[in-house]
């Protein structure tokens, strides 16, 4: 009980960060599921969502800035796919991966140019930035809001994928491009929808994440992006529940390690975990099993 009491703030922070990671990790895992592409630009899109939010709130009220930020990031995600990935649809997979790395650096450098390399202060979103005390631990409301909002969004996404026509098309396209086309599915539309959903979730994640971290720099997306990629691999890349569980586990472990006083090693833990997973269970917790029948 003493352990719990002492570590409650860290566990709460872990659940909260885990939820934020989950929202980013879903973008990685969905894009991988459909294109077999690790979208290296995803973390930087998350950073862009933070920066654009800062510039928007400078002149617009929050109730306009928040939806506008979501829309801009969805459009940006859509455009990245159309401009940098779609022309490479039939190219070797390595080419499209290099293209993704290029987009990642492009976003970082545009951000560097726009901000002049200075850290920008993230706006205070009222209510979720307020402090609350729970079981004697003081934290921000966002800590409690994040896991709830994450779960709602994940459930909505899973329902969309399992029960709607576009969801069925997404599952079909992730399996077999050519046969999906023969069903009359326009694969480019399905791929665009996937990028838009992934981008929207990353934008929501950025609002929750940066509320805790106060400042955004051009490389703010790199580390969370990388960790969420690890989370997606941990859960079994291509699997949405896997990515969510992986993200929560990484978020919680990281913060418990911080609570134990080993803050220096919290990032190292994540990547050590990646190495262990890749050796012990390369397909992750819920990795794709091949059920092909010839």
């Amino acid at each position, binding site marked *: 009980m003493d352990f719990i009491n002492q570590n409650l703030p860290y566990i709460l922070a872990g659940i909260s960060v885990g939820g934020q990671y989950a929202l980013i990790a879903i973008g990685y895992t969905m894009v991988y599921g459909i294109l077999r592409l690790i979208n290296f630009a995803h973390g930087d899109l998350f950073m862009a969502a933070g920066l654009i939010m800062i510039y928007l709130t400078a002149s617009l009220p929050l109730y306009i800035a928040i939806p506008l930020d979501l829309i801009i990031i969805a459009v940006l995600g859509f455009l990245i796919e159309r401009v940098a990935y779609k022309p490479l649809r039939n190219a070797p997979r390595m080419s499209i991966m290099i293209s993704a790395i290029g987009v990642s650096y492009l976003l970082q450098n545009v951000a560097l140019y726009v901000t002049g390399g200075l850290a920008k202060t993230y706006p205070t979103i009222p209510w979720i930035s307020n402090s609350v005390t729970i079981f004697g631990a003081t934290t921000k409301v966002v800590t409690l809001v994040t896991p709830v909002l994450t779960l709602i969004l994940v459930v909505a996404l899973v329902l969309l994928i399992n029960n709607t*026509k576009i969801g*069925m*098309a997404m*599952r*079909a396209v992730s*399996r*077999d491009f*050519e*046969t*999906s*086309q*023969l*069903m*009359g*599915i*326009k694969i480019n539309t399905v791929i665009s929808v996937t990028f838009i959903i992934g981008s929207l979730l990353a934008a929501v994640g950025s609002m929750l994440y940066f509320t805790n971290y106060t400042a955004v720099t051009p490389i703010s997306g790199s580390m969370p992006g990388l960790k969420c990629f690890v989370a997606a691999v941990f859960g079994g890349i291509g699997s949405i529940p896997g990515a969510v569980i992986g993200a929560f586990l990484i978020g919680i472990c990281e913060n418990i390690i911080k609570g134990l006083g080993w803050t220096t090693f919290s990032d190292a833990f994540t990547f050590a975990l990646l190495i262990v997973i890749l050796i012990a269970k390369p397909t992750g917790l819920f990795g794709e099993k091949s*059920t*092909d*029948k*010839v």
Partner: protein
Amino acid sequence: MLKITDLKVNYGGIEAVKGISFEVPGKSIVTLIGANGAGKSTTLRTISGLVRPASGKIEFLGEDITGMDVPTIVSKGITLVPEGRRIFPDLTVLENLRLGAYLRKDNIDSDLNWIFDLFPRLKERQWQLGGTLSGGEQQMLAVGRALMSRPKLLMMDEPSLGLAPLVVRDIFRIIKRINEEGVTILLIEQNANMALQTADIGYVLETGRITMSGTGSELLSNPAVKEAYLGS
């Protein structure tokens, strides 16, 4: 119904189809037979829009459909049952069938019943994942899925491939039945005997060219066809 004029297709760096012309009359069963690499699959893939032709013309119901994209061609009423069945293994049988009707906005319940009537096994297994079906059942699912788009022309790429002789006979019986219900069929087969027995018109394809044509029974009794494809 379908008219192919001087179709040339390059595929994987070689000229797979070297200028073929043929016609598929409405309500008929037409078959293209030929050995591996004769260009049969390439021809069907080109008609369905998966492959772009180098030259030539594809007309369907009087409309030039050459070079249109796959979903558009499906919406015109041409559906391909691809080689190797290609069902979606991690979707249920019912979801596979619903995907076949992806472009349709109307009610598909009566068509589902029609498919379940043609293939009672699929009805029993509608909640099972496609990947758990046997080879023959998967072929039935592939045909049923294609029929869900309500095609005017159903193209089939080697439906008998890898199936037991009894199952093959079943499949051909069903092809006949689908045709009797008003669907035009373009079939390619290596199993020339079954295909020619079923078809109204047959074409023999050799290294990208049509070398013989005639009614199914004419080709069956043609000595050259007998020697090359019927193994007698």
